């Protein structure tokens, strides 16, 4: 490499070449967030009984993506996030923020963080709080004021800028949480349940903002269990359960895998045909004045369509139905041995 540089020094244009090379080096992406075999073991302060909340998680966020960390309650999402921010230390494994240890304050300079159920100082107003955050980032006061104003506007808090935070509703606090996370124009955003406590308009706003931030070049790590919200937003997801990553991949690849079933919608269906279809194991439901036949495999589909056409049944539509992220999530968890909803809720395990 150094040899190469020496050679080029004699030629004209070596400077331009060197510049190009150094630019290349800059563009070369550094993984923004890197987790390597990270585990977190909590100990009960009384009995000292260990409890593994995060169990060997490895992740690498690619620059400019929205990554969803999904999992049922108690899966270990918040525990993972807290380690990424250096609020707790991993029991095993390493974490790097743009190549640095999260305990190093400079690692957090280009980072924005929204805690789960955030809580800010009661005695401050929204503007004062953003002022405080600005000085922690050593941003010039004038810039802080300008950005704070724009952010409050963007999150619909403009009229509440001078209101004491103790008078803020849950949703307003959540919005302010996003403001403070965005104040330093972060390269990396870590959001723990950004949609929680927000009304539908708020959730739409947040989705819009996250897309804007991605377009600006930010890398986003978010947790959620509202999968319908996550599906259209995330580029990649990991499903965490009992502290372990069960599945990881791009949302597209997960959802475009197999067609789950085909739905044939007809205007009318002779009784005899209906019972025959049911006997053959297909689901037939009446939906309003229409009938919906659900067929599991494509081979059977062809035969059914043929007979229906022969019987002059009017076919309104034939649609493939793919798995939603939610269904995928439930299926993956069930495969891991969680049957009931209550089992997931409690998150209890020992």
């Amino acid at each position, binding site marked *: 490499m150094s040899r190469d540089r020496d050679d080029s020094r004699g030629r004209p244009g070596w400077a331009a070449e060197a510049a190009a090379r150094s630019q290349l080096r800059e563009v070369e992406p550094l993984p923004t967030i890197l987790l390597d075999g990270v585990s977190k073991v909590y100990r009960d302060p009384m009995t000292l009984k260990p409890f593994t909340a995060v169990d060997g998680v490895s992740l690498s966020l690619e620059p400019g993506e929205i990554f969803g960390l999904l999992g049922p309650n108690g899966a270990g999402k918040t525990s993972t996030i*807290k380690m990424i*921010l*250096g*609020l*707790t*230390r991993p029991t095993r494994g390493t974490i790097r923020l743009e190549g640095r240890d999260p305990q190093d*304050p*400079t*690692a*957090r*300079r280009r*980072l924005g*963080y929204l*805690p789960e*159920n*955030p*809580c*800010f*100082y009661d*005695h*401050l107003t929204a503007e*004062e709080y953003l002022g*405080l*955050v600005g*000085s*922690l*980032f*050593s941003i010039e006061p004038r810039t802080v004021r300008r950005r704070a104003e724009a952010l409050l506007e963007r999150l619909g808090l403009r009229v509440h800028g001078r209101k004491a935070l103790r008078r803020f509703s849950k949703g307003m606090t959540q919005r302010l*949480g996003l403001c*403070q996370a965005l104040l330093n124009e972060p390269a990396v955003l870590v959001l723990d349940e950004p949609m929680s406590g927000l009304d539908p308009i708020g959730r739409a706003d947040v989705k819009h903002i996250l897309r804007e931030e991605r377009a600006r070049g930010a890398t986003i790590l978010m947790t959620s269990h509202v999968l319908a919200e996550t599906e259209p937003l995330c580029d990649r997801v990991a499903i965490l359960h009992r502290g372990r990553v069960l599945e990881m991949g791009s949302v597209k690849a997960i959802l475009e895998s197999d067609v789950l079933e085909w739905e044939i919608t007809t205007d009318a269906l002779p009784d005899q045909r209906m019972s025959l279809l049911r006997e053959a194991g297909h689901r037939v439901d009446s939906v309003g004045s229409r009938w919906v036949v659900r067929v599991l495999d494509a081979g059977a589909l062809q035969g059914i369509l043929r007979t229906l056409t022969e019987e002059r049944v009017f076919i309104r539509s034939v649609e493939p139905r793919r798995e939603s992220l939610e269904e995928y999530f439930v299926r993956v968890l069930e495969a891991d041995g969680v049957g009931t909803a209550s089992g997931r809720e409690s998150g209890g395990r020992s």
Partner: protein
Amino acid sequence: MSRVIAIARNTLREVVRERVVLILALFGLALVIASQALSPLALGEGRKVVIDFGLAGSSILATLLTVFLGSSLLHKELERRTVYAILAKPIRREEFLVGKFLGLWFTTSMLLISMAGILAAVVTVAYGATPWSVFGAVGLSVMELSIVTAVVVLFSSFTTPALTAFFAIAAVVSGHFAEDLRYFASQGAPVGVQALAEAVYWTLPHLGVFNARGLVAHGIAVEPERLGFAFAYGALYAGGIVILAGTIFRRREFR
């Protein structure tokens, strides 16, 4: 440094916006005025009594306020988890703790100085001469407060508010009696006890160093050497305690 100041400023705001502070400030004012009302009982020693009483009262008040506010200062942040968003910013935990310390110290010192100002004004009006030496005594009290604040911050970095208040008050009280403790131990106690008393004597803050009220009440100014020594001692002791607190706080896990 700007980050430390930002935290200190926020702590100041938090404390000042608590209603307790206002109430205590009014109480201090009432105390100074009441001591003036009591002076006829002192048979011509009125001025002396008012100054002594006023200085002692404001110093105790400021100490109690420090313990009271300081013991819940960190705990509240951890309990309500306001600290999560703050410590995820590019700030060291030690900086955060020093900011808390400075904010609290500054607030109680301001309160103390204003009470002394009012005291001086009351005495000036009543006796026709301004007791300037009061401010020397207040300077010492402010340094004493730095130690009290540091001790409170130290305990609050790892225990509950109740325990913090208990330990801090114990440290302050025994700190005032450090000399006596050593004296009693030297009077024929077993060697083991003597050694222990000696160790405790050197660990406890020597708060007697900061008490010049007797002198000031008699109109004697605090000597510059004494002020200098007290300032150096206060700064070293408080600094050491804050560093220890920072080390503990850095290792702490947030639930």
